């Protein structure tokens, strides 16, 4: 059973009008349980669109998306995934703990169970003493950790992230990457991660999905051989740079100017 199965998916916005945009054309992608997969590519390549199709925030024009062997819409209703965006998107009027409880509240959990889970999540992201503070009293990195705690509060098997560290400074960003890997390992969560940072994609992922714009499509799949355990030393390892070079090579030619010249290479077909 695969965690995510995307089969022959196309997404066309404003079909049949002069403003028609082919956001995604014939995309196939399989994500195995426990895998960490990054989607990378220049802007307009449809990586965020693909993530939203998996999240069922958008419907595909053609093709099908299944999550945990269920239709995407069913898995959204069942809360099979959590989501985190570039903006932490915490609610200003709720305390940190209440923000984490939000998805549980919507599922109708009772108060004590919610509070216990919120505390558990706060410990997971190493901010247990911040429960009663308000989001605006925290730094950007802390807010993003709370957003991850919220996304994982209902213990979903899948985490969907759209450039979650894009607004953070470099040091915080690297720290957060380490934290994310630790959290996902502890909770054995599958992750689909949208980014436009090559080192970030390589450091985090088991596989990097390289995408290209106009029309949006997958041009390459690169496996990263850095092993399961990654730490700060990984960033200096030879395999890390090999991975970065491989992704960079794959991205070259996906840029809009070269989009027509670049042939479709190594599209996964399983």
């Amino acid at each position, binding site marked *: 059973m695969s965690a995510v199965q995307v089969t022959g998916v196309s997404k066309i916005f404003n079909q049949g009008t002069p403003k028609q945009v082919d956001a995604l054309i014939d995309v196939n992608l399989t994500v195995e349980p426990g895998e960490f997969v990054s989607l990378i590519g220049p802007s307009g390549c449809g990586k965020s669109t693909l993530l939203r199709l998996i999240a069922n*925030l958008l419907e595909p024009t053609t093709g099908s998306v299944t999550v945990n062997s269920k239709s995407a819409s069913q898995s*959204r209703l069942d809360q099979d995934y959590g989501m985190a965006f570039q*903006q932490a*998107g915490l*609610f200003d009027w709720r305390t940190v703990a209440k923000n984490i409880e939000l998805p549980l509240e919507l*599922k109708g959990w009772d108060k004590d169970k919610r509070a216990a889970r919120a505390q558990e999540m706060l410990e997971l992201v190493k901010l247990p003493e911040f429960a009663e503070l308000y989001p605006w009293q925290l730094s950007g990195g802390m807010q993003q950790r709370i957003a991850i705690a919220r996304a994982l509060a209902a213990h979903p098997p899948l985490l969907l992230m759209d450039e979650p560290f894009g607004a953070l400074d470099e040091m915080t960003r690297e720290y957060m990457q380490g934290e994310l890997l630790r959290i996902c390992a502890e909770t054995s969560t599958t992750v689909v991660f949208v980014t436009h940072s090559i080192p970030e994609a390589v450091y985090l992922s088991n596989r990097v999905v390289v995408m290209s714009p106009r029309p949006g499509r997958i041009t390459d799949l690169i496996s990263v051989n850095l092993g399961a355990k990654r730490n700060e030393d990984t960033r200096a390892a030879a395999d890390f740079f090999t991975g970065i070079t491989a992704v960079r090579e794959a991205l070259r030619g996906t840029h809009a100017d070269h989009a027509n010249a670049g042939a479709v290479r190594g599209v996964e077909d399983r």
Partner: protein
Amino acid sequence: MNRFARRAAYRTSMFVLSIVLVVALWEMYKVVGPQDGGKLFGAGVLPRSNDTAMPHVWTMLSRYGRPEVRGSDKRVWVVVLEGAWFSFRLSIVGFLLGSSIGVGLSILMSRFRIVERGLLPYLVVSQTVPLIALAPLVALWGGKLSIFGIEWPRWFSAAVLGAFLSFFPITVGTLRGLASAPAAAVELMESYAASWKQILLKLRFPSAIPYMIPAFKLGASGSVVGVVVAEISTGLKGGIGRLIIEYAREATADPAKVFTAVFGAAALGLTMAGVIAISDVYLMRNRPKETTS
């Protein structure tokens, strides 16, 4: 807390200072202004500064302490206070009515685009109808109504006109507020498969509050204006509007008296705005400080 106290002290002193300034300007004009009015560049723009048109501030204030009519043991301040209290209660009824209508309409309009497109122009037009023309009509229609055997009380017409002036800013402000929730937050709620009602209660309303508070302030003062005007034009007894009319008739003989009622009406408006300001402080107590005004 100390910072808060200092700010409160600063605000209070500025308020007092502004009153002192107005009083000083008033009295200064009485000294330098022409007794029987004057012309400036050929137009009669300078108001009369004699004691009939512009009584001294202390005459007005001392008028509060004297009996309302000769020989009565009821002093003016008691009468004005009673009138203000009567109108205050009507304004509250009007305001509550207006805010329920306003919030209800804005929920409907934010839910159904078509309702917004169809209704909003009429709401805008409704506000251009002169209140003074509408007031006798409402009193006339209301007087013929009887719901479940309960007669439409006369005071209710005034409250309805208060509601008429207060619902509009509340509708528009709440509508904008409900639409102000960031798209990413709505998307987040949708990713949680939240229902429309859950999104409304847990996201849209909390994000609307910074927009709703100024709208409710306008609505509250609108309700006071509506009630006072309705009292005047329907001849409803007991309120501050009626007092203004009655005292104005005595303006030549007792010029300070009408000002006592006018100040009463102003205090009424300030009290209503104050009630909203207090709820503002309460509702926004845990929000980032930049957004509180």
